[in-house]
């Protein structure tokens, strides 16, 4: 379903979609020439143009270089709306509310633990449930405790012994979005969440042990306490069934609301409601609950990662030094203040498959990172590499402080399975020094490198466009998938 949307090249990394038809503003896609050729092969540019039609949009409808076709909004989409005459759209956040990723650093050297990787991976696999028929018996919550998780997020986890206060300081929003109201979350979503707190989930969720292979900015790396050869851990997961149910519930509600408020939708999947409406307020309160659930989830899993390292390597926490570098969201709508045409404006910024990337001296980033900027973690596929970036002024000026989030798929799961057929994927990865264990049989075939774009290309575009600055490249050694 090729695109016939016209794009104009602005420069080597920026493409403009001019205003036509019902568009209220222009579209802006970050990509290089090669990428743009394949981006045109599906309808994601149409989706960027459709988002530009929504009421109260401020600035341009944007897309990051990991853009691909999504539900209403493209994945990799960024769009901001005025609080008075703009809208909020669940499709601009995604089903997996606060799907996100965190990076742990350590005091370990890759070469020292390489022989222990199979044992570590197997222990992680045992200690961190995928959530399909598996959950830990030591985390059973009452309804009241669930409400606390939804309002307190990662703080709940820390209060209950999963991690430390230092962790909280190094999470976006300090691991808790205010204004969360469990009453706005359906009973159904509560029930799904109760069963799934502390589980990884499948698809592209994972825990990955890796190491720092290359540094691009020595000073920035020092500020993040990263060094060459250092062992790292990445945790990638979201709000599980609770978030999916919240999205589902509110899509239904906002489909009706779009009609009620006479909002013309170029695509039913862009269902939305005015930010001043009751429906929007309730969605934001429910979204915050789901976001907090995800923060709590990543925090809990982090605790089990630390326990696993202690158990397998027989080392104390003070020697392991598995400290949290940062935790970022990929699917979220945030109320933020940004400068627009010289004025400070309060906006609702949708980032779907996109990451916040605030610059140095930003009030909302940790003290420790005031000089260097907000860390941004960009995971690639399980066979290649991931990147650490920091936020920039360029991002603040152009994209409301946003950047890409990952590699982006290029093959469907079905196609990936075909490409993987007959191959011993786990063996191939092992031969390259990467030990993988997955809970679902299909998952590993579906997640092969060939199924994904090369995250290096994505990261290079944002780096050269000035909306993210490369700091380090990480390579995987051991991965568990849900």
């Amino acid at each position, binding site marked *: 379903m090729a695109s016939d949307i016209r794009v104009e090249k602005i420069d080597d990394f920026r493409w403009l979609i001019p205003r036509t038809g019902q568009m209220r503003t222009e579209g802006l896609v970050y990509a290089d020439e090669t990428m743009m050729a394949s981006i045109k092969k*599906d309808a994601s540019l149409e989706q960027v143009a459709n988002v530009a039609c929504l009421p109260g949009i401020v600035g341009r409808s944007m897309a990051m270089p990991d853009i*691909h*076709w999504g*539900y*209403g909004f493209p*994945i990799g989409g960024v769009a901001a709306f005025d609080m008075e005459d703009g809208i909020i759209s669940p499709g601009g956040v995604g*089903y*997996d509310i606060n799907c996100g990723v965190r990076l742990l650093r350590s005091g370990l050297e890759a070469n020292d633990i390489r022989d222990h990787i199979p044992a570590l991976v197997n222990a992680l696999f045992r200690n961190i449930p995928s*959530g*399909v*028929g*598996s959950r830990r018996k030591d985390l059973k919550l009452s309804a009241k405790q669930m409400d606390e998780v939804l309002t307190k997020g990662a703080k709940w986890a820390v209060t209950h012994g999963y991690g430390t206060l230092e962790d909280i300081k190094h999470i976006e929003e300090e691991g808790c979005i205010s204004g969360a109201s469990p009453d706005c979350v359906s009973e*159904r979503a509560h*029930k*799904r969440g109760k*069963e*799934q707190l502390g589980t990884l*989930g*499948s*698809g592209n969720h994972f825990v990955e042990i890796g190491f720092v292979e290359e540094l691009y900015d020595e000073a920035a790396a020092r500020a993040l306490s990263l060094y060459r050869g250092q062992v790292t851990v990445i945790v990638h997961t979201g709000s599980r*069934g609770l978030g*999916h*149910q919240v*999205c*589902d519930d509110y*899509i*239904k509600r906002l*489909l*009706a609301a779009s009609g009620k408020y006479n909002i013309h939708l170029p695509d*039913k*999947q862009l269902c939305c409601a005015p930010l001043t409406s009751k429906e929007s307020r309730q969605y934001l309160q429910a979204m915050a609950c789901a976001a907090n659930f995800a923060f709590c989830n990543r925090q809990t899993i982090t605790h089990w990662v630390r326990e696993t390292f202690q158990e397998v390597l027989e080392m104390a926490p003070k020697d392991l030094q598995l400290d949290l570098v940062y935790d970022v969201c990929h699917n979220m709508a945030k109320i933020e203040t940004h400068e627009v045409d010289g004025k400070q404006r309060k906006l609702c910024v949708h980032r779907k498959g996109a990451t916040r990337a605030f610059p140095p001296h930003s009030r909302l980033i940790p003290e420790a990172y005031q000089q260097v900027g907000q860390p941004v973690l960009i995971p690639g596929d399980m066979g290649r590499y991931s990147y650490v970036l920091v936020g920039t002024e360029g991002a603040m000026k152009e994209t409301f402080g946003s950047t890409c989030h990952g590699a982006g*798929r*290029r*093959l*469907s*799961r*079905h*196609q990936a399975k075909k490409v993987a057929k007959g191959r011993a994927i786990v063996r191939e990865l092992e031969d390259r020094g990467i030990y993988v264990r997955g*809970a*679902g*049989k*299909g*998952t590993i075939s*579906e997640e092969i490198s060939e199924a994904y774009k090369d995250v290096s290309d994505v990261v290079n575009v944002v780096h050269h466009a000035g909306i993210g600055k490369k700091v380090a490249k990480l390579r995987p050694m051991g991965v568990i998938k*849900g």
Partner: protein
Amino acid sequence: MPREYEYIEHTGDLGFKVYGETREALFVHGAKALFEVLVSPETVEEKEERAVTVEAGALDELMVSWLGELLYLFDTQGLLLKRFEITTLTENRLEATVRGEPLDLQRHEIKTTIKAVTYHQLYVREENGAWEAQVILDL
């Protein structure tokens, strides 16, 4: 035997087209297509029964609600379902009896998990006396 459903390409997600001689058959085949994503049907036995009721504003939304309800049963009770008997089906309401068993990791292998049933590119329609639907899942 006429095809009941077939899977279609969609980057990152999965979709299926469903076919049925009757509206009821269409909804039954949709449910079968959903569960085959999760697990091989031959491995599922009919040990337990549940009554399911869903309502929606229109027939296509009803398909999403139906499949969503079945997914909810899997997510919260670990139920793998195999047989679906629809007793009531109007534009807005579906009642059914469903049979299957709880997930047993010793016998069942979960192929892929499903995040949600979406409204993306959704349709349910009658053509030349037969029914056809399309549903995209978020994986």
